[in-house]
Each structure stands twice: as structure tokens, then as C-alpha cells.
């Protein structure tokens, strides 16, 4: 079973072999409200741990999306660019953002498991 990990910037990451799938959490979508615009990193580009790797915008404001680990972007999800409201509907599953070929799997170690993230999210929103 693959464990999903979480960042303090409210991204989730699921590692399968060398490839990680990354998206934003349900908690993040609830804080953002209706998402109406998405920008994703370019396929083939390299992104650095904790660096920006996209943008989501709600009717209210724009927010950066960060990558929790470094790697090369191997796939992006065009569906959420065409219809950003899908992110609100299914953020932690079909509305993933991008897939990375991970450079250094040990970068995963500093991330939170589900239990710790839920606690973190609850504290940071109160």
C-alpha cells in the first residue's frame, strides 16, 4: 500500500515507484472557495522542493501551489485546467495537479502522515 503524505502548504503526495502524484488537499479547497483558474508546471520542467509549481485562483484571490519534493514534471492534469471546479469536487483523487519523477525519495521523510496533517489543518484554521 502506498502511503499518502502531506505538506504544510496543504499539498498531498502519493509515491508509486519513482513517480509521485501531487495535488492540493480538501482542506485547502475549503479555505480557497470556488476554484476558477489553474496554472500547472510545464511537462519536462524541473521543480525544486518547496518551490512554486503552479497557481490556483478562486473568485477571491490567487494562491501559489508548491511542490513538496524535487523532480522532473512527467505529466500534468489538463482536466483541471479545462474545468477548475473539478478541484473542489474531488481534490484528493481525480483532480491531481502533476506527476513528478522524484529525484530524492528521502525528501518525503519530512512530510506529515494523514493523522498529523489533519491535526495541523485543524490547528491552522482555528
Amino acid at each position, binding site marked *: 500500500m502506498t502511503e499518502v503524505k502531506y505538506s504544510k502548504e496543504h499539498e498531498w503526495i502519493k509515491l508509486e515507484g519513482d513517480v509521485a502524484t501531487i495535488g492540493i488537499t480538501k482542506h485547502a479547497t475549503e479555505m480557497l472557495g470556488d476554484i476558477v*483558474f489553474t496554472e500547472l508546471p510545464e511537462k519536462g520542467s524541473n521543480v525544486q522542493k518547496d518551490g512554486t509549481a503552479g*497557481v490556483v485562483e478562486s*473568485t477571491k*484571490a*490567487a494562491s501559489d501551489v508548491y511542490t513538496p519534493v524535487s523532480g522532473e514534471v512527467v505529466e500534468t492534469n489538463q482536466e483541471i485546467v479545462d474545468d477548475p471546479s473539478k478541484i473542489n469536487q474531488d481534490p484528493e483523487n481525480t483532480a491531481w495537479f502533476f506527476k513528478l519523477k522524484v529525484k530524492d525519495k528521502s525528501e518525503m521523510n519530512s512530510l506529515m502522515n494523514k493523522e498529523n496533517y489533519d491535526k495541523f489543518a485543524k490547528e491552522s484554521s482555528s
Partner: protein
Amino acid sequence: MNIKKTSLYQLHQEYRAKFVEFAGYQMPIQYSEGIVEEHKFTRSHSGIFDVSHMGQLFIYGGEDLIKDLEKIFPLDLKNLKLNHSKYSFLMDKDAGIHDDLIITKINEGFLIILNAACKDNDFKILKELLEEEHKMVLDENRSLIAIQGPKSSQILNDVVDGIKDLNFMSGNWFSFKDHKVYITRSGYTGEDGFEISIPNNFVDKLTRELINKGSKLIGLGARDTLRLEAGLCLYGHDLDKDKTPVEANLKWAISKERISKGDFIGSDIIIKQLNNGVSKIRVGIKPEGKIIAREKTKIFNQSDVHVGEITSGTFGPSVNGPVAMGYIENEFSKKDTKVFLEVRGKKHPANICGLPFYKKSYVKGATK
């Protein structure tokens, strides 16, 4: 400073509002359904907006009142009929805008609706400008709610009989369970609708009845997307002291008769700008793609010269795409002029367009 709450605060909580501080008040930015749904519901059905943070200034006076107010506002108040409303501005001597407002002729005086963030300063300015004998009351004992959208007239008429007979931009006193309410047919969403001034003690009751008849509470978030699609200005963003009504493309709101006399505060500059033109002007801007250009986004011409700035920009749920307005050098203000908007370091194509983005559906005559 203490954050103020409106009389509908508890009702907002019951409907799971997310709150935001706005002009010193705790106001609902959205409810559980979110801005896009709230926006669409207002356009298709009916939405209720708590705008009790706005100022309700009653000015009473004798025969001199009209004369004194005409020295301040660029309006033909002599010919403003009882219970009729006009959109106007409070300006400084350089025609910079202190506030934009709606003024209504009532018995023995006027009711002026002011922006929440400006109302205390407006009161101070008007107090200094007006003669002592005019009585001014910035009424904190009354709430203000707007009900907007195509079903609003039927819904409100079920609760306050007779409002269907009001014409656009006019009002009257009505009775809600024996309490006096002042209702005008007006609003700020581009839809047919009403604004209701009611004592604080009864606003909760009235609002609940409107909800029971099928209207829904709508937050400030959707109020912003609705007014922007309708091409309407938001003070502090699209209007401020560095902009004049002529630059804001609002010269339609200035009385021609008053311009010919030129005897109101700021009239020198207004007349000069009307005769000689302005260097910058407010326009609608439609990005070509999906990118949202927000306030303070720089506008460039086709030769990559910085020629303007966005003052309001968002995603328009009814337009189903980005919408914006801003100020641009006059020579680039023509409809269909291609410009570029700098968002996150990249320049994105956009076109100057007419306003509104969404066609208004005001009901001009009374619906019987």
C-alpha cells in the same frame, strides 16, 4: 478598535457564513454554497445582501437645503421629485471623488446612502459644508438590506405589499408588520431589485420571511463579482480621490444644467475635462484567455509601453471567464483595442471592451 457587527450577525452564523472584516464590520464574504453558486442564484432567482454597514444619512432642512446641497453635488436637485433617487459623488475642489452615493428626495429632506468605509469622513465633510440649521443624522438604528434578482419583486411583494408598483430609482415608505420601512427599487448587481431601510430590531424578522419565500443570503464575495459583471464601480478600487467622475466615465451622472452654471465643488475641473478631454479613462477589459488579471495589474500597449492599470478584476461566473476594469491612457481606450496584461511576470493579451460584461435587466416601469 472594536469590530462592529450588523443586526443580522446571528442569522449569518446560522447560515454558516465565512466572515471577513470590512470597513470595521464583521461581514459575511460567503455562505456554505460558495461565491459562484450565490452569484448564479442571484442572477436566476433572488439574493439578499446585508449592506447595513453602509451609511444612511438623513438630512432635513428648510428651503435653503436644496440650494446648499447643489453647491456640493452635481445634481439638479430642484427638479428631483419626491421619492426619486440619483447616483452622485461627493467631490473635493479638484473633482477627486471622496465617495460615490445614492441620494433620494424624501419628505422634508434627503436620504443619502454612503459607502461604509467613507461614511464617517463624508459626514465630517458635509457637516463643515452645510449650514448649521440643517439637521444631519447618520442613522445607526436602521439596517439596510438589498434583495436582487428576477424573482425578488414577487418575493418582496409577498412580504411587503405594494412594492411592485415602484419604478427603477424611486422609493417610498411601506409597512412591514406596522413598522415603517423605506424601500427603493435599486441595487448594485445589474439585476432588478430593491434596497430596504428598516429599524435594526425588525431586520432579522424581515430577512427570515424573505428566505422563507425562496430568497437566499448572498455574501460580499458574490456582491463583488455581480457588480463587476454589471460594470459598476467599487469605491476605494475603481474610484478614489485621484480620479474624477469624467475620468471614471461617469459623466452621465452629472447634470447638464448644473455644468452650464458650473457652481458646485469641483465644477472647474469637470468643465475643463469635459471640454478638453482627459488623459486617462475607465474602461472594461476582457482577457483573451482564462487568466485572471486582478487589481494593480499593469496594462501595456502593443509597443510594450505601460499605459494603464487594472482597478478591479475577477472571474465572472455568468460570463464564465475573467472580467476586469481599469484606467488606461485615452488614446488606447477605444473598444477592441488590443492590450497586454502583466500577470506573474508574463504578458497576456486582452481587449478593451464596453461595459457591462453582463446585460442589465433593470425593470424600468412598474410591474403590475
